[in-house]
């Protein structure tokens, strides 16, 4: 202090130069920004918790401030309570009943989301590529029909399409009192059922044999593709893999004493029983998601085909390849690199859009979450949980697609 008094002018200059120092500016600027963000966040959160406290709820029911580190109480939280509501439609054989906990209910919804998104992604890709390729067709009718498809489906809200599929199409299927019975399949608005197989004794052993078959198929694929790379002769690794898997599977099937039984659907007591069933709710959701997303994927496909230089098609034609072969072996493989990033976005959209199931009586993770909110009153943690769930799903899809993309780039390099 005493020393500074004597040289206030130089002190001032020092502060001024400090202030003009870019690094100091950056530090101060960012600290002020962060302080404001944190303060506003603190303000909002404390407002919320203050209000919830007044009515005896907690903003962070998972956080036990009286307990010890890490302050998270999983054992005592509300998600362990008995749910009490039933979810009829479950996925992947997951067993859920009203006596299970909210946590199980949430997980059931999560699996349902995964099932509908997974199937939607597969079907939307197939239809999208088909429509996108049709858009490039030389046949005027085909290309314009594809155009009409794209413009119709992508310019109408998905929610509207879902409701339309449900109330105007799926609910109008034959009623259970007057079913459309095709001997092998049953079509009613309670369920569309196809014959399926159900496991019998020996099924477990056969599954193990099948795993072994898959391993053998993979090995065959590797061996044959190495041969192809080494010799340049067409070695059909895919067919070899399929053959190995099929042969081992068939032998195992016979050896374990035919462990599958055909399960033909039938109607009893006004319910469709047996077989492979699809409810109209799931059907409407899947149809709507698939057709909507396919329109966008088709546009991506068209764009990436157009990005391939015309010379490629001409060169392929000069080699004597037909139009199908040109598409399959020359154009489509090249489009993949351009196609994958925008298609990833569409996969993400489809997954997020599956939350629109709430308008149909299909319990996805969002629908289940909103029931839990009503039954427990815990809006804040459930909304947070839902966001984390969807973020993780999005991250997972991005990760998978990025991996595929970088593999492709690497292989083509």
């Amino acid at each position, binding site marked *: 202090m005493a020393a500074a008094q004597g040289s206030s002018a130089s002190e001032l200059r020092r502060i001024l130069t400090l202030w003009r120092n870019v690094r100091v500016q950056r530090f101060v600027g960012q600290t002020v920004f962060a302080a404001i963000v*944190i303060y506003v966040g603190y303000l909002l959160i404390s*407002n919320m*918790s203050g209000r919830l406290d007044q*009515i005896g709820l907690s903003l962070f029911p998972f956080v036990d401030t009286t307990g010890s580190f890490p302050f998270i109480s999983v054992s005592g939280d509300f998600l362990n309570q008995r749910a009490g*509501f039933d979810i009829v439609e479950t996925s992947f054989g997951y067993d859920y009943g009203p006596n299970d906990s909210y946590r199980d209910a949430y997980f059931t919804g999560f699996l349902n989301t995964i099932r509908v998104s997974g199937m939607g992604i597969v079907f939307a890709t197939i239809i999208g590529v088909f429509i996108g390729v049709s858009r490039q067709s030389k046949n005027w009718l085909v290309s314009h029909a594809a155009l009409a498809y794209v413009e119709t489906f992508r310019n109408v809200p998905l929610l509207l399409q879902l409701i339309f599929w449900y109330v105007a199409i799926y609910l*109008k299927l034959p009623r259970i009192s007057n079913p459309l019975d095709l001997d092998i399949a049953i079509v009613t608005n309670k369920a569309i059922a196809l014959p399926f197989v159900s496991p019998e004794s020996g099924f477990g052993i056969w599954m193990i044999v099948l795993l072994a078959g898959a391993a053998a198929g993979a090995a065959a694929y590797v061996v044959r593709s190495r041969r192809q790379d080494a010799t340049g002769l067409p070695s059909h690794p895919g067919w070899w893999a399929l053959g190995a898997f099929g042969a081992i599977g068939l032998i195992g099937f016979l050896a374990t004493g035919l462990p599958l039984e055909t399960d033909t659907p039938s109607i009893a007591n006004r319910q469709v029983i047996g077989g492979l069933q699809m409810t109209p709710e799931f059907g409407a959701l899947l149809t709507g998601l698939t057709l909507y997303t396919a329109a966008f994927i088709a546009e991506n496909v068209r764009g990436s085909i157009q990005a391939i230089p015309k010379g490629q098609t001409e060169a392929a034609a000069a080699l004597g390849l037909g139009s199908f072969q040109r598409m399959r072996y020359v154009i489509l493989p090249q489009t993949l690199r351009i196609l994958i990033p925008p298609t990833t976005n569409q996969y993400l959209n489809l997954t997020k859009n599956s939350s629109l199931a709430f308008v149909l009586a299909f319990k996805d993770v969002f629908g289940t979450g909103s029931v839990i909110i*009503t039954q*427990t009153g815990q809006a804040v943690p459930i909304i947070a949980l839902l966001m984390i769930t969807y973020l993780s799903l999005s991250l997972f899809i991005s990760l998978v697609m990025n991996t595929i993309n970088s593999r492709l780039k690497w292989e083509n390099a």
Partner: protein
Amino acid sequence: MLKRYIIPSALWLMATIFIVIAACGGDDDADGTATPTDTGDGTGTPAQTGEGLLATVLDRGELICGVNDSVPGFGFVDPDTSENTGFDVDYCKAIALAVLGDADAVQYVPLTADARLPAVQTGQVDVLIRNTTMTVSRDAGSGLSFATTTYYDGQGLMVRAADGYTSIDDLATATICTLQGTTTELNLTDRLPDSEPLPFVDNDTLQAAFIEERCDGWTSDRSQLAARQSAYPESAGGPSALVVLDEVFSKEPLGPVTIDNDSQWFDIVNWTVIGTILAEERGVTSANVDDFIADPVNPEIARMLGVSFEGGDIFDAGLGVPPDFLQDVIRGVGNYGEIYERNITPIGLERAGTVNALWIEGGLIYSPPWR
């Protein structure tokens, strides 16, 4: 990477958080559950000191009431006039009359079954009157308070007459449509554990599915079933195509809901309801209320209407609204019996002989003393 960027930024972030927390430390309590209402000047102190919903509603000059918009008789939007009508809506009007003296000073917020309880918790609505069942977990665990029951309901099951179901047990494995997020959804799995519930978010999609025979039964409060039956479209066979099965398999006391810890507001809502019941018990109607104001025939009527009895002092119970608030209520919407007659009788639910009759006539509608 880790050394150059992540560790310094983490340290820096922690330091910033520390500074911010230190800066805000003044209004932090020890346990970390800081509420902004703890600031020194005490302006934000909630509810108890007259800063609660009553003050908010008076300031706003309008009551925000959560209602149903698709149950005829209880809460319904008349398609011709776009007006909200129904039993529950009349109770919204009664509360608006009690607090603001104006039956039209109500903002109706239509709520789905899912959104109704959070709407009260978050203060989106001042009061929720939307076929809401009182249960212990909603009352205790969800930050809500239930006022006097306005309608004693029970869950029933409605089927198409042509299907030939005669008792609820016939539907043990049937598909049953219900509304998502209701107590009826839970009661159904208790009563018919092997049935397949199909929970919809709204009554209209549910009805579309039911008409198309997607489900065999429709379960809900019997009042709602009656309302839906009375409005069942002729194209699907009209009301006579439906049967509500006899068995009632749950208790559904329906009443207004307010937020917890605002006892003043709760009392106003509660005693407005009680006032309409007492008025019926004492024979005070919208037609004759002015006669009673001029000449209250007994002390209780005088206390209730906030008028002097034979020159004595005017009774003020201390609700925070003028002592004569029930005058406006009765003049505006009538007593309990009138509200019932106007809304519920037309959908085919007779009152006499049911639990919703006055206690002096063998029902459960009862008012505590007004003194």
